[in-house]
């Protein structure tokens, strides 16, 4: 196995992957830092929740599109994964909603708990 790597058609994008990966990792680390900082900020709750959700979605997308290579792969891989992701996400959302309607509140509930995380549902 030789270290020299014969470049075939369509391979040139790869030359600088190393740089890209390191840069992405740095971005991810920074976002994580921001997230941790955000929870201490004195803003309105829904703003913070949306910020956190968006930030982690951004991280998520960076990882799947760069580290996991989707960006350079056939779109079909993206479609395939998103079928699962979307159905799972929608199901989660529906479940959490279903449990949050008045009829579904369990009998054993501490009220402050509801208040605490109401922003989520």
């Amino acid at each position, binding site marked *: 196995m030789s270290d020299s790597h014969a470049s075939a058609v369509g391979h040139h994008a790869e030359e600088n992957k190393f740089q890209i990966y390191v840069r992405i990792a740095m971005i991810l680390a920074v976002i994580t830092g921001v997230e941790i900082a955000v929870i201490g900020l004195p803003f309105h709750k829904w703003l913070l929740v949306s910020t956190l959700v968006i930030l982690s979605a951004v991280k998520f997308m960076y990882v799947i599109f760069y580290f996991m290579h989707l960006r350079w792969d056939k779109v079909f891989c993206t479609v395939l994964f998103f079928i699962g992701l979307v159905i799972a996400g929608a199901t989660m959302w529906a479940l959490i909603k279903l449990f949050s309607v008045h*009829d579904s509140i*369990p*009998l054993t509930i501490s009220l402050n708990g509801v208040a605490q995380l109401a922003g989520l549902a």
Partner: protein
Amino acid sequence: MRLYSLLPHFTRWGRAAVLAGATLLLTGCDLNFWRMDGHQSTIVVNGPVARSQLDVFYTTVAVTMVIFVIVGSVLAYATLKFRAKSSEDEHAEPPEQGHGNPLIELSLIGASVMALVIIAIPTLKAIWFTYDVPAEEKANAYEVNATGLQWWFRFDYPNEQINGVGPLTTSNELVIPAGRPIRINLRSNDVIHSFWVPKLAGKVDMIPNRGNFIWLQADEPGYFWGQCAEYCGESHAVMRFRVIALGPREFNEWVGRQMEPARTVKDTGDQPKAQFASYRTDWKRNEKGYSGKFDLNPLDAWRAHQEPEKHENAALIAKGKELFQAKTCFSCHVIRGHMVGGSSAYPDLTHVGARTTIAAGLLENNPEQLARWITHPNEVKPGNKMYVNGYLANNIQLTPDDVSALVAYLSSLK
């Protein structure tokens, strides 16, 4: 084989089939199958909630029937018209290899959606109507709590508080005022059960840790069959109950009687000394526990149950009361005013004699069945908690004399 060549056979078979069917129906079986007016019919109903649900059902039937007839006719026509009539036909040149027609597709899709809209509108209306007591009726609604337990029902009346005891409690027979919306809170402490009185309303489940409720209303006084509809373990099949709807006055009288502590039969001296009846003991497992007579007019049968028996044997009843304590029955069952003990996890027997059924709507409440229940609880209702946690755990043994005393006592608790 071609259809027409079979036709003569068909007529012969058909006649035989009709004959066989007729004999089947006439020999002992019942006609309710066709009339669908059994005690738990969802078709012949007696309350607004069940009626609203029935209307939706009829809408769905009408719409799907129409579609069925149309689609079915086309399908039948296509099958008959285009079938290869002979073997030459089978090997003929293949037909035109057509691939479809978007216009037909689209119009059929449109038609299906239209059909669904016809179903959806009454459905949505009924969802909201059957959900809770209508706003304008709220003030008039009567509230009850129902709890499912393996395998019986407890009913509490939060509006009828008894001093120092709590709400009026009864089991397996829910008595309600007729013509008034009833809102029932449904609870369970063990597994999931479901509260279903088909003639009054569809079911709602009783789920642990969940505050479900149902509303229903009986048009007029009547006697209704109910059943636990969610599989809840071994004896789910025999977890039944009854609902008795009464006119306002009669209902109030009933409440009045129930609020009283348990009845004590006075020894007037001229009654016979303890005389033991003997009851059938050779019951088969799962043998029927009802009589046809009762069904003819169940509401009157219920009314008759409210009255004390003519010739009560006070001595025997007193003996039964002692035995109830001696045999540890009181450690589970409450008999308000007679002895201290028992809990709400077991049926309240304060007025058990005034109920038409025992063992959760399974057996008719008469001395024979009562005796059967307390001698063979496990044969009547396999795995029931009275047998497992009482008879087995406390090693309860009853002689025939004990049984007839207990029966006399329990029957006297009107």
